[in-house]
């Protein structure tokens, strides 16, 4: 019964969406805004990855909100899971030597790879969010392979807050210099396709990468701690 009603409701929504999809031909040029970014993005921001230019510079305020959403979720998860904590220590089957050594060997490499992704965000595909997720996945590996290891909570808090603060402070510096706009790109653009280019974009993306990495790692940490 319930599924029939749901199907009917979904069919109505589907018909409506199908009608309006007629107006959006697949593969056609729809936006002058997007074209503007592609044509002028390199000149205006100095980043060769236009998606990064849009994420960090043109729509930087969205990204600030997005970082905040992740922060809210991490805090909310902490608040929800903190309300009652059972203290009993379960005995964990320790990992085999090969697994343990393998994980310890891979862990710094994965961290390095994550850092590479977010440092090069303005040049190649990738950026703070992807790099941060890779960093967090290194911690997942540690939880799987080296049972019983925990992340340093104070350290992760420190990195998390520092990342957010760098983002905001770089934005505020824009109010003081270079045209008095929040989150404007006031540093020299540099030469296209080199590491030190694109003004504030790499700085913000590194801050985001650190923040996202420590937050996602913290989320995993809290969930795992709860589940063992």
């Amino acid at each position: 019964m319930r599924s029939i009603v749901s199907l009917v409701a979904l069919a109505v929504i589907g018909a409506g969406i199908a009608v309006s999809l007629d107006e959006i031909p697949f593969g056609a040029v729809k936006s002058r805004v997007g074209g503007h970014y592609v044509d002028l993005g390199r000149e205006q921001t100095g980043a060769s990855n236009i998606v990064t230019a849009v994420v960090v510079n043109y729509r930087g305020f969205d990204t600030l909100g997005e970082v905040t959403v992740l922060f809210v979720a991490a805090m909310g998860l902490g608040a929800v899971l903190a309300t009652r904590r059972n203290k009993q220590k379960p005995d964990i089957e320790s990992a085999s030597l090969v697994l343990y050594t393998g994980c310890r060997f891979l862990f710094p490499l994965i961290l390095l790879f994550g850092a590479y992704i977010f440092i090069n965000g303005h040049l190649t595909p990738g950026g703070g969010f992807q790099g941060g997720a890779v960093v967090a996945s290194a911690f997942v590996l540690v939880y799987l392979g080296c049972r019983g290891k925990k992340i340093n909570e104070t350290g992760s808090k420190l990195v998390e807050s520092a990342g957010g603060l760098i983002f905001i402070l770089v934005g505020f510096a824009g109010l003081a210099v270079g045209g008095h706009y929040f989150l404007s790109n006031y540093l020299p653009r540099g030469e296209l396709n080199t590491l030190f280019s694109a003004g504030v974009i790499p700085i913000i993306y590194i801050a985001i990468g650190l923040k996202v990495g420590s937050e996602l790692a913290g989320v995993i940490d809290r969930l795992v701690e709860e589940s063992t």
Partner: protein
Amino acid sequence: MVNPVVLVAVPLGLAFALPLIGLVSKRMVKYIPVAAFAFNLVVVLRHIPGVLEKPVVVHIGGFVPPFGINLYVGPVGILFAALITIAGLLVSVYSLVYIREGAKEKYHILFLLLLTGAMGVVLTGDIFNLFVFFEVLCISSYALVAYLGDKGGIESAIKYLIQGSVGSSLLLIGIGLLYGQFGTLNMADLAREIQSASPVSVFVPMALMVTGLGVEAAIFPLNAWLPDAHSSAPSSISAVLSGIAIEVGCYAVVRILFTLFGVTDLLMFFVFLGVTTLLIGEMCAFSQSNIKRMLAYSSIGQIGLIVFAFALASSYGVSGGLFQMISHTLGKALLFLAAGYMIYRTGSMQISSFQGMGGKMPLTALAFTIGAFSIVGLPPFIGFPSKFLIIRAALAKEAILFTVLIGLILLGTVIEGAYFFRVIQVIYFKKGSEKPERREAPVAALIPMFIFAALILIIGIYPGLVSRVLGPAANELLNKMDYIRSVLG
């Protein structure tokens, strides 16, 4: 003049810094939200005169719209910013003493971010940015509803989360459809493009977006989450959820319908929806024995009235809706704050357990009574001029249908009066068996309550204080050409 972007950016920065501050000193943490809102209040008050003359458009990152995100601080924006800041400041002072258990540091961070998300929603001029800040608002309220960690709180939070995130996904699909058709996300630019588009092609995105936002605005078929969520959150959070969160949802619906889509002909639908919401809310509130559920259902009723007022789409109607929002924010926040301490003292949410409260906590009971009278709409409190304005707007339509609807609204008010007076009767006139022992709420909780009460009384006596803002605000919502012109030049 300070750039209005600090209204969003400074609280965000402080929220990010809070874990660090917590490492240095645990006791400092709870004062940070107070400081953030006090700062915002100064900024908002300094901006009000200027904004009423000419709206401020802030280009973020220095890119002109539609290529960058812009903030639009017009009369509506500054009105809501003031409301959010005042409610935030007072409730954060109340939280200083009210929040004693749980992860306190996280409570203060989430509280600060909830209201910052609301601030972002009302100030932004970009539709996707609105979505992002809306998510900040929603996700922090999901977490705060579950803050106490009891059975009811977790269950309400999960239901709220599921309904809210389906709503957000619908909103995002709507935004995607609009972007596909018009290739822009700036609200002024979209509004200009939509004028020349065929109504059929924009109907589906409009319906999806209004449905998505309607979940948060608690418009009738989409409000199943509200009574649970508002009644199981800590009372300070119930105050901001009822006072700010649903108003901001309503603002987003109104902004999208009026400014973005320039709708005028579909509004009859919302007139009926508003009246239905009102009657259902008030009737459910009447049958409650739990004080917080009663207040939550009363919020549904008030939202119905607000939706009705906006749907009239006249200058009086929109002013009335905005005025009713102010009156509901002040009144309902006060009610929840006062009820919070009464519940704390009695240890029960049952209305019947409040007997003799008038003797035990006279000041809190007085604050509760003022809030209740104002919500019902008795003079000289703020609820009276706001309801009066709505009824005058409906009478101005001069149709037999609207006379009938006014009758129904008055019926709703009568029901509202009945259940509030029942509570007041229990508080004052039913003596408990034991001797009344006076244990008042702490001073830090009484001060915000009495500032709310004072605002209710002062604006109720001098409605001119806010009607200076209401006129331009209604004009901003109804005149989309002015909005487009001031953003795009």
